């Protein structure tokens, strides 16, 4: 490594810290999912606070943040989960611009609300671009820092910063809500016709809890009543379980229910296909919120029409436009 290149050294990696950005597209048919920040609103807000490119690479820090040593003076911003940044032990607020001097160490407290904090650094993290993105795809050892979550001793290269920004903060109204209870809007479809109608109605009306197996691949839910399926002969090639289908693609956001038991909402590192039926999908506008749900948070599904999903999509676009106006 060149002597003068700016970098951050990972002292402690935290629970699961990865380099993420807007993600990649066009490779899902080969089993390579989009990856990228699970909460795209908070990720973009962190960059916009610093005057970075909106899609510059950041660190996504799940539940317990990392400890990082800076060898260059930079500005940082932490958004998303409420995870207090400490500069040489001194606490600073989230959702604002903080100065870190060369030689200082940045660490974090536990997340007290939300599940994923986004750490943006002026100039962004300059890891190599892989298939159009710097996002980490761990299952495929692709992108990010050597295709994996951070480990102690990793050097993270930084890009060239733009001019320092005056200290500004993200208005409360533009922050991702971090409540432990959250409504997710769902459009019914895919293989919903294979489930007894009253069983599926109950499925969407019951509260569900986020299980401990909730990660970037998918959010497993627990606590509800298992589905009852409509009787049929298993189609050739599908498998014998009533929840089996002839292996098909899985939409990002789709809700699969293996054996009718514990639903899984697929997210940005999704497995791209498989043999379990899906009963619908979370609308695109509500995907950001999922990444901020810690284990044991409560989810209420609400069925919406496609028209309502498109209205929500416009509202999310308007939110992003207001974020860009702070830059």
């Amino acid at each position, binding site marked *: 490594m060149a002597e003068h290149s700016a970098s951050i050294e990972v002292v402690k990696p935290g629970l699961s810290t990865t380099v993420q950005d807007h993600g990649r*597209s*066009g490779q*899902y*048919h*080969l*089993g*390579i999912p989009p990856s990228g920040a699970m909460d795209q609103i908070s990720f973009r807000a962190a960059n916009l606070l610093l005057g970075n490119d909106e899609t510059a690479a950041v660190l996504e820090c799940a539940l317990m943040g990392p400890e990082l040593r800076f060898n260059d003076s930079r500005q940082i911003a932490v958004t998303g989960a409420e995870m207090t940044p400490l500069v040489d032990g001194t606490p600073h607020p989230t959702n604002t611009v903080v100065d870190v001097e060369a030689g200082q160490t940045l660490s974090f407290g536990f997340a007290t609300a939300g599940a994923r904090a986004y750490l943006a650094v002026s100039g962004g993290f300059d890891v190599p671009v*892989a298939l159009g993105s710097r996002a980490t*795809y761990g*299952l*495929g*050892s*692709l992108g990010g820092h050597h*295709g994996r979550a951070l480990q102690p001793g990793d050097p993270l290269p930084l890009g060239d910063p733009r001019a320092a920004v005056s200290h500004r903060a993200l208005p409360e109204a533009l922050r991702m809500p971090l409540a432990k209870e959250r409504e997710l809007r*769902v*459009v019914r*479809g*895919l293989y919903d016709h294979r489930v007894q109608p009253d069983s599926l109605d109950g499925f969407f009306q019951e509260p569900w809890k986020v299980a401990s197996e909730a990660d970037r691949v998918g959010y497993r839910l627990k606590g509800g009543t298992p589905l009852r399926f409509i009787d049929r002969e298993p*189609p*050739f*090639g*599908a*498998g*014998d379980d009533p929840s*089996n*289908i*002839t*292996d*098909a*693609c899985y*939409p*990002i*956001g*789709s809700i699969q229910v293996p054996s009718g038991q514990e639903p899984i909402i697929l997210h940005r590192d999704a*497995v*791209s*296909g*498989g*043999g379990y039926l*899906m009963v*619908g*999908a*979370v*609308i*695109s506008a509500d995907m950001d919120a999922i990444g901020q749900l810690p284990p044991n948070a409560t989810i209420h599904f609400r069925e919406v029409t*496609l028209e309502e*999903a*498109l209205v929500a*999509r416009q509202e999310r*676009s308007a939110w992003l436009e207001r974020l860009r106006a702070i830059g």
Partner: protein
Amino acid sequence: MASRYTVGADEHLFVEVSEEMSLDAYFTSLLVTQELAERKIPGITEICPANASFQVRFDPDILPLEQLRGTVEEIEAGVGRQEATLDTRIVEVPVLYNDPWTYETLMRFRDRHQDPSGTDLEYAARINGYDDVPAFIEAHSGTPWFVSMVGFVAGLPFMYQMVERDRQIQVPKYVRPRTDTPKQTVGYGGAFSCIYSVRGAGGYQMFGVTPMPIYDPAAETPYLKEEMIFFRPGDVVQFRPIDRPEYDSILESVERHEFIPRTAPITFALKDFESDPAGYPATLQEALRG
């Protein structure tokens, strides 16, 4: 039967060509998605063919669902049986069946298996009516396979064997999925073979392992320098059983970056296969000997 159109919320159109696996459904999925890709329609972000269905991801701000659906229906109506031919390639994949690494793994996860007293190969041979494991391996490697879908994880091919329906092998997946599978394991679930491209979780029965890399994000493998993923839907695979000395020798050649898989261009015609399902695959295998 007409395809079933449905949505994955506001960004995905999902089309189930058939509930059950068939070559007709597979070819419809492949040919419709190929034609859709060729049209390069603004607003489409992903086109994913599967075994008997396909999915299109789109941006509804650019391309309204009804417009996309109309285009896909139009393409599907135009895909006739006479067009069911593919200019593709046949690839020979060496396989060490009954290898020590999948054996060690399957023993570790025996409590998750239908038959804890045997191996995956013994179980699959028995429930498919084969006298012994060698006869089963002969059936698995005797006839080529279509790569009908790529996915699950990066570059994993799902494959469907070119034999009549009554000769097709079927096995259930593990009762509970494993948390570990050796890299490049040759697996089996439902009516599909697969090759695990990376180490990780899996639910397919494990039959063997290939020394041939099929995914290389580091781009060190000579035939994976341009594209990190080897397989594409429509590829034809011929498994070749190898013994341990040959496995070791191929692996050394892989590590020296000298191994190149044997491939040959072929044209596959669905009608020719259906009129002679026993004889036609042999003409494709011929191409590898050329």
